C-alpha cells in the first residue's frame, strides 16, 4: 500500500471513530449521570501534560485543548516540582501560541524586505548557503531547544559539516555554572534536588531574586512558614527585591565583592574550627588558582586576606553580618541550601564565584545531605537537558564529551556513523565570539534558532555590528529584533505544537506530546534541520553522507527502513522525537548521566537522572548524586563519592580563588552601577510574553529603577524620562522610584525585556575567561534627567 493511501485510510479511520464518539455514543462510564439544563464545562476538553515553556524550574503543566486549540492551563498536581501550582507566566503560557503576528510562512529577504516563499525554496537557499560556507557557518541555539532539536543540530553541524561553531544562548546564562561544577566536581549539574528545599531549615540566596525568577520554588520554601516550620531566608544581594522582603536577613553588598564574602566565610570556618574536619579530610582537595595542590594550611594562609574587617570594608557588609554567615555555615546542626543564578553566573569571574560557593559548602560539610546542598538554579527550561547534557557548546560533544579528546570524537563518530575524522578537533566560537566573528566577517553566516541575539547580546552596537550584512537564518515563532536582520525567516512550531523533551534544573527530564497543530506553514525545528541537511545531501555535500554513503541524518524504523522524514507529511506521521531521543540515550552513560527509555518519560511526571534499572527491571530515578543508597553509581560503604573527579580519587576540589575588581567600575565620568535582569511577568526578550495580554498589561514597559534618595537628589520622580549612558551606548527610559525593588545608592536596575528600548546597547561585553559568559549585572553608567 502506498504511503499516501495509508495516510488517507488512517485519517478516515480516525474521522469515523471521532464522529461516532462525539455523536454521544452512550457509554457505561457515564451511566447514571445527572441530566440538567446547562452544558458541562468540560465537554470535549482534553488534558495532557507538558513541562512549562518558561523557566528552569520546570513546573508540570496540564494543557487543556478543545477543537484544536489550547483553552486552559492548570498546574499538574501529580508533578513533584510544583504540585499543582504555577506562576502567572505558567498560567498563561497557552496564550503565547496565539499572538496575532505569529510567523506562519517562510520568508526570504529581497530588496530589503522579507517576502513569503515556499519551504522548498527556503530550504534550498539555506542548504546552499551552508554548503558554500560550511566551515564558516554557525548555529546559535538555545536552552529552549528541546533535547532532540539540540541533538539534531549537533549531528548536522559537528558530524555533518565538521564545524564546531555551535553555541547556545545558555552560554549567556549557565556557562559559569557549568565550568564551576566541572572544575569543582569533575562533572556538570547539581548533586542536590528540589527535595532539599523541603528538608532544609535555611536558604542562602546569592544575588538572585527567586521570588520573581523561580517563583514556584520560592513559594515552595516560604509557604513552609504556614506549617509553623522555623525556616530562615538569607538574601545576599546588591538590591532589595521581593525576595529580600521575605527574607529574615538582607545583606547588601558592593557589586563583585561576593568573591570576597565567600572567602571570608571559609576563612572564619577555619579560624573558628567549625569546619567539618572529617568530611574535608576524606572528600576535599585544595588547589591554588594556578592548579597546584595546596595543603589546608596553605589554603588557610590564602584566606588571611579575607578577614571580616577587611571584607567588611571592601563589600560594605557590616562585620556582624559576615560573622552571622559564618555562624550559619559553621553550625553542624543546620541544614543549609545555597541558591544562585544570574548574579553569580553573569559575572566576569563567574566560574570562580561558583567554585567559591562550593568551597563554603565543602568546608562546612553541607553537601550531599538532605537539606544541605549548594544548588545552582538554571534559567532556561532545557539549558540542562539540551545545552549541557547534549553538549550543544562550541567545545563539546554529547554526554559530557569534548571535541579536543580523540577518543570522544571517535566514539561520537561511531555512534553517528559519520565518516572517520568528520568531527573537528578545534573548539568553535562561543556565543560572544560568534557574533564578533560575524561582525568581522570571519563567520559568514549563522542559523539562529529559538533565541533572539539581536536583543539579548551584551554591548549590542558592537556585538551585532554588520549582522545585517551577513547571511542570517532565523527559526522563530514571532517577528523579533533578530528576524529584523535576517535573510531567511523560518516559521517554527512551538511548545505543544510538537513533541518534545526538556530537562530542568534538578536534572528532571520531562516529556510531552504534540497537542495542537502549528499554525499556517510553521514546522518543527527538527524537521527544518533534517530538510536542509537532506537537501545538502541531494546536492552532493560529502559531509551529509554517513560511513556507508547514505544520508547521515536518516531516521529509520524498527526494521531499519529509512523514513523520509525530510518530507513534512511523513515527518508528521512518525514520532521523530522518540527515535532521536533513543539514539541520544546511548551517549548519556559515559558520565553517569543515564537517561531512561522514552516510554518511561511518557508515563512519568519527569525523572531525575541518572535513571537506572533495578533488579526487577523498574527504572529508578536519582534524587541526590554522589550519595550512597541514592546514587546507583556510588558503591556500598563509600558514603559520599565524587566519582567523576579528574584525579580519580573521589574528592571534590576547593579552589583558592581570589577577589579581583571588576573590569569596569563607576568612576567620575560614569559614576553609577547598572544592573540588568528580568521581571516576573516577562520571559527574556518577551517575544512571547508581551503578546499575552495579561502579562503585557501587568508589565507594559521597561523602566529604570532608582534608589529613592538618589532620585530625590537628582530631582527625578516616577515617570520622568532618564537617559542611561555608558561608554558603549545609551537609552532613555522612564524612572520608577519606590516600585518593585530598591537599588542600592549609586546604582540602578533596568529590566531587559523591552525591544524598543534595548538596554543591551549599554551593557558590557566582558566575560569570564573560563566560561566565556558575559557580565550583565555590572557596568558603569551616568544618568541624566531628560524631561
Amino acid at each position, binding site marked *: 500500500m502506498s504511503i499516501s493511501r495509508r495516510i488517507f485510510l488512517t485519517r478516515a479511520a480516525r474521522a469515523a471513530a471521532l464522529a461516532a464518539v462525539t455523536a454521544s455514543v452512550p457509554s457505561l462510564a457515564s451511566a447514571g449521570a*445527572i441530566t440538567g*439544563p*446547562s*452544558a*458541562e*464545562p*468540560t465537554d470535549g*476538553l482534553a488534558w495532557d501534560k507538558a513541562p512549562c515553556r518558561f523557566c528552569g524550574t520546570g513546573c508540570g503543566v496540564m494543557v487543556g485543548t*478543545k477543537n484544536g486549540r489550547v*483553552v*486552559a*492551563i492548570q498546574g499538574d498536581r501529580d508533578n513533584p516540582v510544583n504540585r*499543582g*501550582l504555577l506562576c*502567572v507566566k505558567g*498560567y*498563561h503560557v*497557552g*496564550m503565547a501560541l*496565539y499572538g*496575532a503576528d505569529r510567523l506562519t510562512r517562510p520568508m526570504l529577504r529581497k530588496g530589503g524586505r522579507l517576502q513569503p516563499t515556499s519551504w522548498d525554496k527556503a530550504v534550498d537557499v539555506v542548504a546552499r548557503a551552508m554548503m558554500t560556507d560550511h566551515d564558516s557557518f554557525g548555529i546559535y541555539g538555545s536552552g529552549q531547544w528541546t533535547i532532540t532539536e539540540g541533538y539534531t543540530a549537533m549531528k548536522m553541524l559537528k558530524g555533518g559539516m565538521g564545524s564546531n561553531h555551535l553555541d547556545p544562548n545558555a552560554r549567556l546564562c549557565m556557562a559559569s555554572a557549568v565550568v564551576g561544577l566541572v572544575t569543582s566536581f569533575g562533572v556538570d549539574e547539581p548533586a542536590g534536588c528540589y527535595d532539599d528545599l523541603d528538608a532544609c531549615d535555611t536558604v542562602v540566596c546569592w544575588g538572585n531574586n527567586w*521570588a520573581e525568577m523561580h*517563583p514556584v520554588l*520560592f*513559594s515552595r520554601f516560604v*509557604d513552609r512558614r504556614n506549617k509553623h516550620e522555623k525556616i530562615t531566608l538569607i538574601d545576599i544581594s546588591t538590591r*532589595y*527585591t*521581593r525576595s529580600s*522582603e521575605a527574607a529574615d536577613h538582607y545583606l547588601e553588598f558592593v557589586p563583585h565583592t561576593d568573591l570576597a564574602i565567600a572567602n571570608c566565610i571559609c576563612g572564619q570556618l577555619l579560624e573558628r574550627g567549625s569546619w567539618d574536619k572529617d568530611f574535608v579530610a576524606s572528600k576535599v582537595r585544595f588547589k591554588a588558582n594556578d592548579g597546584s595542590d595546596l595543603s589546608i594550611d596553605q589554603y588557610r594562609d590564602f584566606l588571611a586576606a579575607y578577614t571580616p574587617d577587611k571584607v567588611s570594608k571592601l563589600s560594605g557588609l557590616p562585620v556582624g553580618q559576615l560573622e552571622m554567615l559564618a555562624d550559619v555555615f559553621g553550625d553542624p546542626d543546620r541544614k543549609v541550601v545555597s541558591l544562585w543564578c544570574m548574579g553569580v553566573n553573569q559575572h566576569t569571574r563567574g566560574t570562580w564565584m561558583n567554585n567559591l560557593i562550593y568551597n563554603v559548602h565543602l568546608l562546612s560539610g553541607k553537601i550531599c545531605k538532605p537539606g544541605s546542598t549548594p544548588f545552582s538554579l538554571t534559567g532556561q527550561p532545557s539549558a540542562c537537558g539540551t545545552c549541557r547534557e547534549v553538549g550543544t557548546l562550541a567545545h563539546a560533544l554529547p554526554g559530557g564529551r569534548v571535541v579536543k579528546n580523540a577518543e570522544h570524537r571517535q566514539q561520537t563518530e561511531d555512534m553517528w556513523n559519520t565518516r572517520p575524522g568528520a568531527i573537528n578537533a578545534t573548539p568553535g566560537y562561543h556565543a560572544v565570539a560568534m557574533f564578533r566573528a560575524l561582525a568581522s566577517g570571519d563567520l559568514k553566516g549563522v542559523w539562529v534558532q529559538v533565541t533572539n541575539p*539581536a536583543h539579548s547580546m551584551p554591548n549590542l552596537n558592537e556585538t551585532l555590528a554588520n549582522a545585517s550584512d551577513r547571511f542570517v537564518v532565523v527559526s522563530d515563532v*514571532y*517577528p*523579533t*529584533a533578530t*528576524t*529584523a536582520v535576517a535573510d531567511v525567516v523560518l516559521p517554527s512550531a512551538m511548545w505543544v505544537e510538537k513533541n518534545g523533551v526538556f530537562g530542568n534544573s534538578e536534572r528532571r527530564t520531562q516529556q510531552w506530546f504534540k497537542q495542537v497543530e502549528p499554525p499556517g506553514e510553521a514546522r518543527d525545528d527538527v524537521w527544518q534541520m533534517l530538510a536542509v541537511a537532506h537537501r545538502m545531501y541531494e546536492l552532493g555535500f560529502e559531509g551529509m553522507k554517513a560511513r556507508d554513503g547514505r544520508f547521515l541524518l536518516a531516521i529509520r524504523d524498527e526494521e531499519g527502513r529509512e523514513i523520509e522524514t525530510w518530507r513534512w507529511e511523513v515527518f508528521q506521521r512518525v514520532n521523530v522525537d522518540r527515535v532521536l531521543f533513543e539514539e541520544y540515550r546511548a551517549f548519556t552513560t559515559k558520565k553517569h548521566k543515564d537517561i531512561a527509555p522514552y516510554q518511561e518519560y511518557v508515563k512519568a511526571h519527569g525523572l531525575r537522572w541518572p535513571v537506572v534499572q533495578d533488579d526487577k527491571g523498574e527504572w529508578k530515578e536519582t534524587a541526590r548524586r554522589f550519595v550512597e543508597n541514592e546514587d546507583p553509581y556510588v558503591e556500598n560503604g563509600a558514603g559520599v563519592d565524587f566519582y567523576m573527579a579528574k584525579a580519580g580519587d573521589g574528592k571534590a576540589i576547593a579552589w583558592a580563588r581570589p577577589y579581583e575588581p571588576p573590569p569596569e567600575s563607576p568612576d567620575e565620568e560614569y559614576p553609577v552601577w547598572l544592573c540588568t535582569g528580568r521581571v*516576573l*511577568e516577562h520571559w527574556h526578550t518577551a*517575544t512571547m510574553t508581551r*503578546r*499575552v*495580554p*495579561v*502579562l*503585557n*498589561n*501587568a*508589565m*507594559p*514597559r521597561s523602566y529604570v529603577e532608582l534608589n529613592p534618595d538618589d532620585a530625590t537628589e537628582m530631582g527625578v520622580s*516616577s*515617570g520622568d524620562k532618564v537617559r542611561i549612558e555608558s561608554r558603549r551606548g545609551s537609552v532613555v527610559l522612564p524612572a*520608577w522610584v*519606590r*516600585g518593585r*525593588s*530598591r537599588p542600592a545608592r549609586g546604582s540602578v536596575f533596568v529590566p531587559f525585556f523591552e*525591544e*524598543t528600548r534595548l538596554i543591551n546597547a549599554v551593557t558590557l561585553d566582558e566575560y569570564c575567561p573560563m566560561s566565556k559568559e558575559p557580565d550583565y549585572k555590572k557596568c558603569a553608567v551616568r544618568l541624566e534627567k531628560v524631561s
Partner: protein
Amino acid sequence: MRRAPGEGQLRPGRAWAALLSVAVTLSCAAAVAAEKGGAALEAGPVADPERLRAFYTAPPAIPHVVTSMGSGECATCHGDVRELGERSTVETPHPELRNCSQCHVGVQSLNEGLEVAQVVNSWRGLEFPGEGRRAHDWAPPVVPHRFFFRENCNSCHGSDNARVAMRGPHPERSSCLQCHAFDMGAEF
C-alpha cells in the same frame, strides 16, 4: 480603594479575545502603537469578575493599584472580607499560599502616565461553567466548578461578599458539602 486615573480597563467579555483594534508589530523596525488605557475602572463592585481571568480557573488579575513590593500586604484586605466604604474585598480562598504576586498581577501596575501597547491575541479561553445542575427543581445544585483552589466556600458565596449575585441564599447553614455534591467530571 485607590484608583489611578487613566488606569487600563480590561475589555469585557468572558473570553480574552482580541483586545483592541490597534495591532502592534513588536519588531525593531515598527513603532510601538501606544494607547493610554481607557476609562478608569468603574467605581463600585467589579460587576463581571470573570473578565479578570484569561480562562476559567486562571488566577484573576488585580483590578487596583498595587504599591507594595511583594505580597506581604495583600492579607490586610484579602485575608478576610473587609468593608471599605461601599465596597468590600474578596477573601482569599487559599490563604495557605502567601506569595500572592507569583500568580496575581496588576493591570498597568506601573505608575500612571505610562503608555500601554495593547496586543492582539486570538486566544479564546475555556468558558466558565454555568449554574450547577439540579436533579430536579428542588434539589440542591451540584457544585459546577472544581474544588481545587476553591475549598473555602465562604470566600465567594459568603453573605457579605461584594458580589451580591454570588451570595448564598442560606448563610445560616455552614456545612455546605452536606447537600451540595461535587461533579468529579469538573475536577480536572
